[in-house]
């Protein structure tokens, strides 16, 4: 019933688009552009390698450790009762000396799958199940079997599409990363000759920028007077750069204009002050890097109100050698997403106008490796020849998206990891022009078209 309603409203929107062409900030007009469905998009790469068994299937220890305990440890994102036995995913109970014994209170009264639409069986259909490969597919909508570390995505990222065809500014597009390892700083623009740096999104790894490296090298950086000193620097630098105007030989800037550059520097300065005086907006529980990163991401959202923000997480990956910590970090990743959605609804302008997408970058093995943790629970890798690594999910919530809708099932998977880029393009009214460039995975579809 809800799906019918959605299709009906989509049809009406499409009809409106035909009769009322939409002019984008880039000046594009015509058959390729439609009115945006959403003003802002936040895409969470729920990354680190999540098993379906402990996430959407809510099997807790039942399948992972052959213990008869099921339950939902992601209750901000998914509806379902939590486990009632062998609680090890929460905060440590220091009084009773139980590791992970106190579950974190839910942030959202209604789980996101009830507010939005869940695709419980999506496929990471090609390529190796490596983190960078998965993240790269998430932001580029394509798979490349030759994609390696230390190499930018080979096809354009969603940032480049939006900046090139949507006329978005550099500060409209942000990749907020959990860190700088694993080539993550290369995910904000591609190596494609027709796109690349001129259309890249801004990148920040806030736990590094505002952690020890940033404190030693950025904190308390000098504020030059904008109208006198800074203007002088810009004049001299322009002269010097004019005398070195060779194609491609420039410091790798991202075409932030002068005002955007100033704004980023002010943001950094302001955030350092917040770190110092303890006024950062952090999740109630913030005892890992994922949670801190999401806290900083909220600061970026508040400051810039970007059209698109991509956030990646990674603490879940501890599952290679510590299943208990994997459960704890999975529970915290859910806490982070719930917090993020709550905070978005507190930002004037973004509240009610933001669509959030959540998708793991790939799954994890069905069979455990030999490593046991303190609870004698086995660990799990993400290997090349295991079909379980191809099982992921997608969740989207926001204006115009039906609540409580599930699309697809184990027997009838719907959706692909490459779908997020066309979905974001669709949300901004650019689906057709992005598809027309022929640089997406051929089977990639907007999730709206999967319904």
């Amino acid at each position, binding site marked *: 019933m809800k799906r019918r309603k959605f299709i009906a409203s989509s049809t009406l929107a499409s009809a409106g688009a035909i009769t009322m062409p939409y002019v984008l900030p880039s000046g594009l007009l015509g058959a390729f552009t439609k009115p945006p469905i959403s003003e802002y998009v936040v895409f969470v790469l729920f990354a680190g390698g999540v098993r379906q068994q402990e996430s959407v299937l809510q099997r807790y220890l039942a399948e992972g450790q052959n213990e008869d305990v099921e339950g939902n440890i992601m209750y901000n994102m998914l509806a379902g009762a939590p486990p009632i036995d062998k609680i090890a995913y929460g905060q440590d109970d220091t009084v009773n000396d139980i590791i992970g014994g106190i579950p974190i209170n839910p942030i959202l009264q209604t789980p996101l799958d009830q507010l939005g639409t869940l695709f419980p069986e999506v496929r990471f259909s090609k390529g190796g199940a490596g983190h960078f490969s998965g993240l790269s597919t998430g932001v580029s909508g394509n798979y490349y079997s030759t994609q390696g570390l230390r190499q930018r995505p080979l096809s354009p990222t969603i940032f480049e599409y939006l900046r090139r065809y949507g006329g978005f500014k*550099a500060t409209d597009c942000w*990749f907020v990363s959990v860190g*700088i390892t694993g080539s993550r*700083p290369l995910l*904000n623009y591609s190596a494609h000759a027709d796109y690349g740096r001129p259309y*890249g*999104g*801004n*990148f*920040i*790894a*806030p736990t*590094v*920028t505002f952690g*020890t*490296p*940033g404190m*030693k*090298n*950025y*904190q*308390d*950086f*000098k*504020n*030059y007077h904008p109208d*006198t*000193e800074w203007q*002088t*620097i810009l*004049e*001299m*630098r322009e*002269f*010097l*750069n004019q*005398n*070195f105007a*060779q194609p491609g*030989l*420039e*410091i*790798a*800037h*991202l075409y*932030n204009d002068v005002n955007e*550059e100033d704004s*980023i*520097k002010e943001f*950094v300065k302001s955030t350092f002050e917040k770190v110092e005086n303890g006024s950062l907006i952090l999740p109630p529980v913030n005892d890992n890097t994922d949670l801190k990163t999401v806290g900083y991401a909220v600061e970026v959202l508040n400051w810039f109100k970007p059209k698109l923000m991509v956030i990646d997480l990674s603490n879940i990956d501890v599952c290679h050698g510590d299943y208990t910590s994997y459960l704890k970090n999975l529970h915290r990743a859910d806490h982070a997403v719930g917090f993020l959605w709550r905070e978005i609804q507190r930002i004037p302008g973004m509240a009610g106008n933001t669509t959030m997408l959540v998708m793991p970058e790939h799954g994890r093995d069905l069979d455990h490796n030999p490593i046991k943790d303190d609870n004698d629970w086995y660990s799990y890798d993400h290997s090349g020849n295991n079909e379980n690594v191809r099982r992921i999910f997608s969740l989207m919530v926001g204006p115009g998206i039906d609540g409580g809708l599930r699309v697809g099932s184990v027997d009838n998977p719907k959706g692909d990891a490459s779908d997020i880029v066309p979905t974001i393009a669709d949300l901004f009214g650019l689906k057709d022009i992005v598809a027309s460039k022929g640089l997406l995975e051929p089977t990639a579809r907007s999730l709206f078209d999967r319904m």
Partner: protein
Amino acid sequence: MNTLISGKHVFRILTFALFGMILFSSCEVEDYYVYGINDIEITPVNSEKDKAKTEAQYISILYTNLFQKAIGPNQMLEALKAIESIGDKQIAFDMLVSKYMNDPAVVLPTDESMRENPEQFVRDTYSRFYVRQPTEAELQWMINYIESRPALTTELVYFSFATSNEHFHY
């Protein structure tokens, strides 16, 4: 036997002789030179700098230029991480150099020395950051700039050079 030659004949002989002299003299072979010009591509003095420094090279040279000593390995590692954590490298370098400029250990020429001998200051600055001498045009522009702005400091000049594109290339 004497032959009487009239004045008319003398005139004719002289005319032929003169004509003959002119004729013979005009037949002398002269070398004829044609000067051609080969096309030569004029390139700027800095055109050989076509490779970007690595961030480690950039930081190392920058630090040495500003502090007159080598950067320590741990400090280098932290600086590299900080740079990598910001996508727009111009902004990252601006903040890094601003931070260095706030350090009391930074070594800068005095403003007085710049005012006393702007040409030498400009030459030294080009040499320090670009490892070359300025062209005449660059020299004049910089000297004019310094002399026309009483509030200009050596710090601002150093900042501009340190964060310019040429300084990032070799």
